[in-house]
C-alpha cells in the first residue's frame, strides 16, 4: 500500500476513528456509544489492512465487532433504565480530565516527533498469515497455550460471577 491511494485511505479512516472515538466517550445515549464503537473498530480493521496485517484485520472484525460489541449491547439491554434522557452520563471530572488528556497528547506527540525510529525499508511478505500461524505454533507456542488457558478461565469466571445462586 505504498501508492497514493493508501495515504488518502489512512487519512480517511484515521478521521473516522477519531470522530467515532470522540462520539463513544461523549454521546448521551450509551446504546449509540456502542454503535459508534462498532464504527471505530471497523475503521481500525481497515487500518490493519493498510498495514498489511490481513489476519489481524479479520480477527479484529470477528472478535471486536462480532463478539465484544454484541456483548456490550447485551449488557446495555440487561441493565435497563440507565440510558434514558435526562440522566447525567458524565461525572464532574470533565474539565480536569480534558486538561490531563490534552497534556498527555501533547507530551506523547512531542516525544514521537523527537524520536528517531529505526524504520526498515522492506515490506510485509504476502503470505503473512501462514508465517503468523507457524510462529504461533513454534516460537510462541507457550504464550499461545497460556493465553488460551486465560481465555478459558475468563469464560468460566464470567459464568460463575454472573450466575444466579
Amino acid at each position, binding site marked *: 500500500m505504498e501508492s497514493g491511494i493508501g495515504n488518502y485511505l489512512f487519512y480517511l479512516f484515521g478521521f473516522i476513528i477519531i470522530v467515532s472515538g470522540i462520539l463513544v466517550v461523549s454521546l448521551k445515549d450509551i446504546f449509540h456509544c456502542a454503535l459508534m464503537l462498532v464504527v471505530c473498530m471497523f475503521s481500525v480493521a481497515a487500518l490493519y489492512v493498510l498495514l498489511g496485517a490481513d489476519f489481524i484485520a479479520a480477527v479484529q472484525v470477528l472478535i471486536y465487532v462480532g463478539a465484544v460489541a454484541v456483548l456490550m449491547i447485551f449488557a446495555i439491554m440487561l441493565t435497563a433504565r440507565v440510558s434514558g434522557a435526562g440522566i447525567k452520563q458524565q461525572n464532574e471530572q470533565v474539565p480536569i480530565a*480534558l486538561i490531563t488528556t490534552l497534556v498527555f497528547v501533547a507530551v506523547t506527540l512531542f516525544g514521537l516527533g523527537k524520536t528517531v525510529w529505526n524504520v526498515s525499508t522492506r515490506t510485509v511478505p504476502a503470505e503473512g498469515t501462514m508465517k503468523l500461524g507457524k510462529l504461533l505454533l513454534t516460537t510462541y507456542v507457550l504464550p499461545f497455550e497460556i493465553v488460551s488457558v486465560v481465555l478459558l478461565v475468563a469464560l468460566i469466571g464470567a459464568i460463575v460471577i454472573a450466575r444466579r445462586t
Partner: protein
Amino acid sequence: MHVGLIHYLSLAAILFAIGFFGVLTRRNAVGILMSIELMFNAVNINLVAFNRFVTPTDFTGQVFSIFTIVIAAAEVTVGLAIVLLIYRNFRDVFVDNINLMKW
C-alpha cells in the same frame, strides 16, 4: 505527504487519549469498559504499525497484537459479568453511586 510510522503512532496516541478521557469521565460502567476497548485498539494499532515499519518480516508485532486481542476479550467478558452482578445487587451501573467500600 507520505504516511509513515509517525502518523500511525500519532493516531494511536490520540485514540488512546480519547479512551483515557472516557475512563476518567464516564459514569456508566459499560461506558468505561467501552473506553478501555478504545485504549486496547490504540495499543493494537501501535503494535501492528511497529510490525509493518520496523520489523516487517518478523511478525512479532502481529503475534503480540493477537495476544492483546485475546486478553481484551477475556477482560470484557469478566468485566461485563461483574457489571451485571453489580446491577443485580444495586439496581444501578453508575460507578459514582456504587460507593459501598468507600468511607
